[in-house]
């Protein structure tokens, strides 16, 4: 008999709980959210809220000190994540979350900087920054929410939109080949690459934990339902129907070759942890180079220095 069925056995009956006043115990996320901004602006059945929970759960499982974690977002529905998490958080400009985060991280090497932003933001308008940050192995954890569309602006085609999908600017179906994001990230040098859907919330949480714990450019792509625009325009039902689709059509294949994980419109796709290796970060390379050439004359940057002028 499997353990699971043991657990499913009838319990020693404990009395049914008395009805509880709704707000008497806070939701465990409340400590990590800007509760004065909840409810958030995201649509019913949008998956973004799930990503926020996974991010916080993953973060809680690291040894990072809360004070030393900063979140940077660009612009978009996903870009609003920075506005809801109770951490030092920066809502920047469209596509520039990664360079802003780069400045933040280099300015204060004690920080762990996470970028949470959309597909259009990170690999459309911000694509150049994405590839260079990966190449440099900048110490950033990037959570890329892929909803296959430019949601915030009303559902236009994105560099991730699968061919034939309908968007407001491809009313006859998208025809440009989309990016395979894990492949792009790996090719550019990311040290950690994983893809989950927002339904795989436990594995997603674990990948976020790993990504945050790893020095260097770590990318977690999260395929997430945009119910209002992507699902509706393509007659795919609600966000719940998209989760069901993910459930039935995603296959976990850890270590899959990233070149094999492209996503076609409403076709089965691969999720998993694809890349996990080590190489020195930009900061480590810089310090090593400076120490090698300058010896004792090299003074490494310690912490923030705006008050450095004594």
């Amino acid at each position: 008999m499997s353990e699971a069925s043991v657990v499913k056995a009838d319990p020693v009956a404990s009395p049914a709980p008395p009805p509880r006043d709704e707000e008497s115990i806070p939701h465990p996320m409340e400590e990590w959210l800007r509760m004065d901004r909840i409810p958030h602006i995201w649509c019913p059945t949008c998956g973004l809220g799930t990503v926020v929970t996974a991010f916080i759960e993953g973060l809680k499982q690291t040894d990072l000190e809360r004070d030393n974690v900063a979140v940077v977002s660009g612009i978009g529905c996903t870009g609003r994540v920075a506005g809801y998490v109770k951490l030092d958080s920066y809502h920047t400009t469209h596509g520039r979350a990664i360079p802003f985060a780069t400045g933040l991280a280099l300015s204060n090497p004690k920080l762990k900087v996470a970028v949470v932003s959309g597909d259009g933001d990170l690999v459309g308008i911000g694509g150049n920054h994405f590839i260079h940050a990966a190449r440099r192995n900048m110490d950033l954890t990037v959570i890329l929410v892929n909803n296959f569309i430019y949601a915030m602006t009303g559902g236009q085609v994105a560099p991730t939109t699968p061919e034939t999908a309908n968007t407001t600017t491809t009313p006859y179906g998208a025809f440009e080949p989309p990016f395979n994001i894990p492949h792009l990230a790996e090719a550019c040098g990311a040290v950690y690459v994983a893809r989950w859907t927002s339904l795989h919330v436990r594995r997603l949480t674990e990948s976020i934990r790993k990504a945050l714990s790893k020095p260097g450019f770590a990318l977690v792509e999260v395929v997430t339902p945009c119910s209002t625009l992507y699902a509706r325009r393509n007659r795919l039902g609600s966000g719940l129907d998209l989760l069901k689709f993910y459930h039935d059509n995603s296959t976990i294949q850890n270590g899959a070759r990233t070149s094999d994980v492209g996503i076609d419109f409403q076709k089965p796709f691969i999720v998993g942890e694809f890349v996990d290796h080590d190489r020195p970060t930009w900061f480590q390379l810089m310090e090593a180079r400076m120490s090698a050439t300058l010896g004792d004359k090299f003074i490494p940057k310690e912490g923030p220095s705006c008050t450095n002028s004594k």
Partner: protein
Amino acid sequence: MKFWRKPLDLDEQKVVRGEVHILRDRCKGCGFCVEYCPEGVLKLDHAYNKKGYHPPVVIEGKECVMCRLCELLCPDFSIFITERGTGVPEVRDD
């Protein structure tokens, strides 16, 4: 549920029971929690909440096993679980 025989580690098989907390008025009725609860503990209420959505309710007689999947999946931070008490699975001899 009945066991054919008493498992050897029965006394170690602590079953954690969860108490489901639903923040009715924060819920947007997406149904994620209902759909993915492995124990079928939840259903969407007929009644509306203040926002006009149907929040989940616990189905009478169903027991939450505290897997927290509903809590993790909920995009609106409106359902969570606390531990209610532990119990040893019951073995009935009939």
